[in-house]
């Protein structure tokens, strides 16, 4: 059975602060690294999921009789076969394991099939007779507030939130800061909209579930948080947590899209039902409905300021479409609220954010998590305000840049590192490449080789954007990470160490971080990282919120120091065969929730720390054809301290690409709730021809609360890139461009 994602991994050299080659790079370039879709076990069957073709419908009946008798089929399961809790969810259990009487989104799982060949499973699924009574789908988030409640039991009520009695509200947050009616000498306002972005990780949802023969199950899966998967899987199977062991299989990208469950419960159900290992691999089309997306948003903002450029009051209304189930929508709502005014000090603010249930694709975590949407809006507003005041846009941002000692609209005083003015200055100082002469090779024209002009309609523009967001979980969440360190003496008497930490390696490089920290703390050569699993170590929390470097560093540092103390108490050495084995839990400084009525933080901090970034983009637009080319991107990013500089640059370049994608091409299209572009033919992500060079500057101002001062780096580039690229398009065209992604018809002036 090939079920371990990689052998125990050892870093050959490197401590905190050094560029170190990835420990998993060699198995990844040779094809040996076992991703969740590469697993195999003797006697394995293939699982397949029958999904709803409707966005909203009653299920009148399900007849599995013909499907069960198809060749090679071993099981066909519906909600009646779920032995435990029928509902699950990341934060609120509002989603059926398999649809019960009603489907609420296109692609919702309805039934499962296990068969000997994946094609047999697909064909059997086609023979399951489901009688649907289609219902009018709730697809407009504004109308949703007055339409039928899709979840009449209101799963998110009584969670300590503001009580909003309107239909379909997932969460409403109102933040009142200073005098929300304060007037300025000038005012600019605008309405901004963003479409649905997909994480589009390349490794499809997949995994292997293996029954243990004693009623329990092992699930090998690509996920972002092993222990929260177990907490959701076990109750639905009616098993004790220790009977469900989640193992991290190789993860082909995540970006938030693997926070929620995909095949975990389904595979385990089929495995326990058939007594055979079950492999499930989604197709790309299925992947587009198999995970949550970035929330589409409608945002109104008004900025009031004085002639000297100082912001007086920022007034914001945000509407987020959460789709059919809650996922992490409540937290995205609070993040959008927290960062709505941008990284600027403002004495007065009114921020009202509402997220709703609809029959659109469910939305949840994606890199940037609410901060991307508001950055697009607040940066457009800052440019508008600069134009109104006839000030330089960079200068306007510097005049308002938030700094230590300033207070956020939620009442939190900035105490840690947040070098906003520094990232603005460093980014603004980056030299922009000279314009390239025309005519030129079509591959370097907007639109690339498809552009058959000589570039007559090409205009160039430059855009600038600044953004910030939180690191780690916020608002009173008990955010912790465990690590276990085993010191041993090998046969030759040499001291070695094995580190256990369940921090999910999703490609971001946390495996290296863990080993670099262990080498720094233990000063040993022989250190390996054990496979990630729930059975051998406590939770690491989620590989999300730019938190994993901070949290895993804290946990591994704490456990290593405890192991050294234990070793010293035993005289500083171990006899062959002896060992020290300690597990420690690290928690970051405490945070507090917001008051449901005032939106003000109920303690010292709502967020433990912040990270900021500035970006400058140069674009060319063929204004006649509506085609674009991003020529160059420069960025300065606050990173606290670089644990592994090579990996930091990689995160910045990759995060920039995802923000560029949302600016120019990435949108899940729906019609009456049905996704119409669920493929890489129709959902476009940036290719090698779309990405410009990214000139990145690291701003290292260590955070006093962070282990080694290191902040997470994954999200900030994505937060600012969409805003920066669209700002450059506005500069090139003079158009307002209030919606992302910007389409060719917007740029050619055919639609607003």
């Amino acid at each position, binding site marked *: 059975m090939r079920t371990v994602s990689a052998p125990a991994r050892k870093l050959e050299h490197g401590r905190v602060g050094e560029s170190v080659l990835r420990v998993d790079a060699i198995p990844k370039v040779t094809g040996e690294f076992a991703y969740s879709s590469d697993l195999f076990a003797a006697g394995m069957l293939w699982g397949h999921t029958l999904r709803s073709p409707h966005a909203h419908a009653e299920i009148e009946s399900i007849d599995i009789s013909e499907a069960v008798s198809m060749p090679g089929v071993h099981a066909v399961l519906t909600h009646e076969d779920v032995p435990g809790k029928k509902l699950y969810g990341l934060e609120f259990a509002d989603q059926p394991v398999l649809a019960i009487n009603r489907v609420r989104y296109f692609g919702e799982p309805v039934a499962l099939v296990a068969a000997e060949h994946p094609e047999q499973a697909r064909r059997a699924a086609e023979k399951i007779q489901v009688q649907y009574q289609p219902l009018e789908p709730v697809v407009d988030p504004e109308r949703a507030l007055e339409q039928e409640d899709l979840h009449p039991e209101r799963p998110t009520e009584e969670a300590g939130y503001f009580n909003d009695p309107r239909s379909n509200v997932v969460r409403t947050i109102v933040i009142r800061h200073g005098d929300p009616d304060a007037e300025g000498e000038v005012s600019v306002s605008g309405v901004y909209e963003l479409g649905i972005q997909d994480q589009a990780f390349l*490794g499809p949802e997949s995994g292997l579930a293996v029954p243990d023969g004693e009623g329990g199950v092992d699930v090998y899966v690509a996920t972002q948080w092993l222990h929260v998967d177990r907490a959701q899987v076990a109750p639905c199977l009616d098993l004790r947590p220790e009977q469900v062991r989640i193992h991290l299989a190789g993860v082909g990208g995540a970006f938030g899209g693997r926070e929620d469950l995909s095949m975990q419960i389904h595979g385990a159900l089929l495995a326990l039902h058939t007594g055979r290992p079950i492999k499930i691999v989604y197709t790309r089309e299925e992947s587009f409905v198999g995970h949550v997306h970035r929330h589409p948003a409608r945002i109104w903002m008004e900025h009031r300021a004085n002639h000297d450029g100082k912001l007086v009051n920022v007034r914001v209304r945000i509407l987020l479409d959460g789709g059919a189930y809650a996922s992490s929508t409540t937290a995205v709502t609070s993040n959008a609220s927290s960062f709505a005014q941008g990284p600027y000090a403002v004495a007065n603010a009114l921020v009202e954010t509402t997220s709703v249930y609809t029959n659109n694709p469910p939305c949840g975590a994606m890199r940037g998590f609410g901060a991307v949407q508001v950055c697009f809006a607040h940066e457009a507003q800052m440019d508008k305000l600069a134009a109104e005041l006839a000030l330089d846009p960079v200068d306007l941002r510097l005049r308002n840049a938030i700094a230590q000692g300033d207070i956020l609209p939620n009442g939190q005083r900035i105490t840690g590192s947040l070098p906003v003015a520094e990232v603005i200055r460093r980014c603004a100082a980056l030299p922009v490449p000279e314009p390239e002469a025309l005519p030129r090779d079509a591959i370097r024209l907007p639109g690339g080789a498809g552009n058959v002009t000589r570039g007559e309609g090409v205009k160039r523009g430059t855009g600038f954007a600044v953004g910030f967001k939180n690191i780690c979980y916020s608002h009173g969440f008990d955010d912790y990470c465990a690590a276990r360190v085993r010191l041993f003496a090998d046969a030759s008497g040499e001291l070695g160490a094995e580190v256990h930490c369940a921090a999910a390696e999703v490609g971001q490089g946390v495996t290296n971080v863990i080993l670099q920290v262990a080498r720094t703390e233990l000063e040993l050569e022989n250190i390996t990282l054990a496979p990630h699993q729930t059975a051998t170590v406590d939770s690491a929390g989620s590989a999300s919120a730019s938190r994993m470097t901070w949290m895993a560093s804290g946990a591994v540092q704490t456990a290593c120091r405890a192991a050294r103390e234990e070793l010293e108490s035993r005289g500083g050495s171990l006899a062959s065969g002896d060992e020290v084995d300690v597990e420690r839990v690290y928690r970051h400084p405490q945070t507090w929730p917001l008051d449901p009525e005032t939106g003000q933080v109920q303690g010292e901090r709502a967020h433990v720390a912040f990270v900021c970034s500035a970006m400058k983009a140069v674009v060319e637009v063929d204004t006649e054809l509506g085609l674009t080319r991003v020529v160059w991107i420069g960025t300065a990013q606050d990173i606290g301290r670089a644990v592994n500089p090579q990996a930091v640059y990689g995160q910045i370049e990759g995060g920039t690409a995802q923000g560029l994608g949302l600016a120019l091409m990435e949108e899940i299209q729906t019609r009456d709730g049905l996704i119409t572009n669920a493929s890489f033919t129709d959902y476009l992500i940036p290719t090698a021809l779309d990405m410009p060079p990214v000139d990145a500057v690291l701003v290292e101002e260590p955070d006093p609360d962070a282990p080694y001062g290191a902040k997470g780096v994954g999200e900030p580039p994505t937060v600012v890139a969409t805003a920066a690229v669209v700002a450059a398009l506005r500069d090139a065209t003079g158009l307002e461009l209030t919606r992302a992604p910007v389409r060719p018809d917007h740029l050619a002036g055919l639609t607003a």
Partner: protein
Amino acid sequence: MRITLTVNGEEREADVWAGESLLFALRERLGLPGSKNACEQGECGSCSVLLDGVLVCACLVLAAQAEGHEVVTVEGLGSDGRLHAVQEAFVQTGAVQCGFCTPGLVVATADLLARRPDPSEDEIREALSGNLCRCTGYAKIFDAVRLAAGAA
């Protein structure tokens, strides 16, 4: 149906269903999961292999079409336990993050450098534009191609 083909220099037999792709046969029948299954419709390049020396998406070739032909996958690029120069360059430059696109990009880069030992920037971008990467933003992949070209 039973097919015989040469994979990474070895003659192999596989019992396949007529509708199976070469990618499925490599991954599920022949124990070579290095070629990846990201889209299975020829858009992402993750399953790039050489079929009689020509770069193809293994998901768009039927297993049965490979009967009697020669296939080289990412597992067959290195020799004598040593990495291919392109593989080594991807490791050194940090071109690998999640790595799911890496096998396809390694094969596509090896193919490019076999045809154009010293490609221009535009040639690199165009040659790799059929291989999607979601993690890196491509910058370090371009570094890897340049490093491998210099080493070749």
